[in-house]
C-alpha cells in the first residue's frame, strides 16, 4: 500500500466536546487510498514536538478529497493540533497500516472512547451490511458518536457508566445481550485494551470473528524503528502495530486464558 507524505490544508478544526476536536483536512491522496482502520501520522510544521502522532482516519470523502480526524487532547501534540487554525497546513504521512478486513457476515462494531474514530469510517464502508453498533462512554455527553454513525448503522446501542443514556454499565456487559438478540457474524472493535480483550473473549465464546485495532507508542509509523512491535500469539512472530496492523485478528493479540 502506497503511503503519501503531504501537506493537508485544515478546512475545519472545531471543538465538539470539552477536549475533543473534529478536524477536516484537504488531503486527496489520502482520501483516495484510505481503508477503514488505517491511520495517518501527523505533525505540525515548526512544532516544538519532535515526533509525529498517529490518528485514525474517521471519515473520507473521495469526491471532495477530504479526510477527517476526531481526536482528544491528551498532551502536547494533540493540544497543538487543537490550537491550529483553518488554512494552516498539517504535515501528513499516510494512509498507514492494514485496516479492518471486510468480512462477509453481519457486522457488529464495538467502540470505546476515542477508539470510535476509525469505526466511523468502517461503519460507512459496512453500511450495505446493515451494521449494528455498540458504543460506550462515561456519560451521555461523551457518547456523541451516534451523530457520525447513524446514517450508516442499522441500530446503535449505547451504554454509559452512569446510565445517563442507554444501558447503565460497560459495553462488554451489554455485548452478550446483543449477540443473543441478533444474528451477528463478525465483530470489529477499537478502544481501550482492556475493553477489546473482553470483547475478544466474548466473541470467542459466541463463536464470532473478532478484529481489534491496537495502540502503541510509535516513532516512525512506517515499520523501521520497531518501537511498536509485539509477539503474534498464533505464529510467535514479531508484528509491527504500525504497518502489520493496527488491526489484527483478536487471536493474534490476546491470550484467552
Amino acid at each position, binding site marked *: 500500500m502506497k503511503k503519501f507524505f503531504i501537506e493537508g490544508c485544515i478546512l475545519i478544526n472545531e471543538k465538539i466536546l470539552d477536549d475533543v476536536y473534529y478536524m477536516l483536512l484537504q488531503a486527496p491522496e489520502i482520501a483516495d487510498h484510505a481503508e477503514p482502520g488505517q491511520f495517518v501520522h501527523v505533525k505540525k510544521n515548526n512544532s516544538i514536538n519532535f515526533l509525529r502522532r498517529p490518528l485514525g482516519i474517521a471519515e473520507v470523502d473521495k469526491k471532495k478529497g477530504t479526510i477527517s480526524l476526531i481526536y482528544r487532547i491528551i498532551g502536547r501534540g494533540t493540544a497543538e493540533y487543537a490550537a491550529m487554525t483553518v488554512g494552516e497546513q498539517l504535515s501528513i*504521512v499516510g494512509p498507514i497500516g492494514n485496516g479492518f478486513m471486510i468480512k462477509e457476515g453481519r457486522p457488529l462494531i464495538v467502540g470505546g472512547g476515542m477508539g470510535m474514530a476509525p469505526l466511523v469510517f468502517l461503519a460507512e464502508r459496512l453500511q450495505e451490511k446493515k451494521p449494528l453498533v455498540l458504543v460506550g462512554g462515561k456519560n451521555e455527553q461523551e457518547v456523541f458518536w451516534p451523530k457520525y454513525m447513524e446514517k450508516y448503522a442499522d441500530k446503535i446501542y449505547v451504554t454509559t457508566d452512569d446510565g445517563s443514556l442507554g444501558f447503565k454499565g460497560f459495553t462488554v456487559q451489554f455485548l452478550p445481550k446483543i449477540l443473543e438478540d441478533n444474528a451477528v457474524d463478525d465483530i470489529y472493535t477499537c478502544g481501550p485494551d482492556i475493553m477489546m480483550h473482553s470483547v475478544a473473549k466474548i466473541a470467542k465464546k459466541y463463536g464470532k470473528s473478532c478484529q481489534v485495532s491496537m495502540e502503541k507508542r510509535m516513532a*516512525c509509523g*512506517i515499520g*523501521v524503528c520497531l518501537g*511498536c*512491535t509485539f509477539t503474534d500469539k498464533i505464529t510467535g512472530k*514479531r508484528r509491527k502495530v504500525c504497518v502489520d496492523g493496527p488491526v489484527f485478528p483478536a487471536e493474534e493479540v490476546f491470550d484467552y486464558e
Partner: protein
Amino acid sequence: MNEISLTVDIGRLHLKKPVMGASGTFGFGREYEDFLAVHEIGAIVTKGLTPLPREGNPGVRIAETPAGMLNSIGLENPGVDAFIRDILPKIKKYHVPIIVNISAGTVEDYGEMAQKLDIVGVDALEVNISCPNVKEGGIVFGTDPRSAAAVTSSVKKHTGKTVIVKLSPNVTDISCMARAVEAAGADAVSLINTITGMVIDINKRKPLLGNVTGGLSGPAVKPVALHLVWQTAQSVKIPIIGMGGIMNGEDAVEFLLAGASAVAVGAGNFANPRAVKDVTDGIEKYMRKNNIHNLDEIIGKLEV
C-alpha cells in the same frame, strides 16, 4: 561550469552520495520507497543484527523528549541468518551500498557474524559497540579501548569488507576509543550512537520506558555529536561517518566541516521520511551556492 560531485570513499566503499540512513532508523531501506528514490541514496545501514534473533526490550520503547527522542528497542532483529536468507536478496536490487550493522555478546561472536556476512551483497560492516539498550555486549565494548580493539581485530580477521566501528558518546575520552579501533585495523569510525537518557512518568512514579533507560537522539544531541566528530577527526586518520541530530543540509555541512566524510540521518527520518534526500539536496545546494565542486573542499575544512 564544472559539475558538482557528491561522491566520497569510506575505506574501499565508494559512495555516490555522502548521506545514508542510520542503523535502526532506516529498516532495510525498502520501507522508504514511497518517500524517496532508495537507489539514489548514499547507503543503507541495516538495523542492528545479532547472532540469534532478538525480541528486544519489553514495555514502552519510545519516548519523545525536547528536540529528540529516547528509544529502548533493545536490538530487536531477526538474527544474522534470517537476514542473509530472507532480507539481503530483496535489498540487493537497489544497487546501493549495504552496510550491515552488527552487535554481539562476545568478541568471538562478532568475528563469527563478520565471517557469515563476508558475502556478495554486503558492502561493509558497521560494528556496533555502543548500543546502550542491551545488557550483554553492546556498550561494554564501547567504553573500554582494549575491548573495542579486540572486537575490531576479530571482525577484521573474518572479513574482507570495509569495517566501520560505531563509537559511543558515553565516554570520557572518545579520542582514545577512536585511536584504539584505528590501531586495531578499523577502516572507518561512525559516531555518535545514542546518549543514555531517561524519562520518568511522574504520575505512575515509574520510568516511562520499559527498560528504564533509553538512548537519546535527534536535534537535541547535535552539538554534542558535532563536538565528538570534531574531536575524533583530530585524533585519527581513518574516515568518519558523522551522525546525531541531522535534519537538513546545513546540519550535514557542519558535520562535514568538522571532519566527517559522510553523514547518516537517524531519528530525523521519523519526523521527515524524505530526510535523507532533503539532506543530500541541501548539501548540494550549499556547494552550488559556495561554488564548491567536490566534497574534499568541505570535509575537515573547519578553520579553528
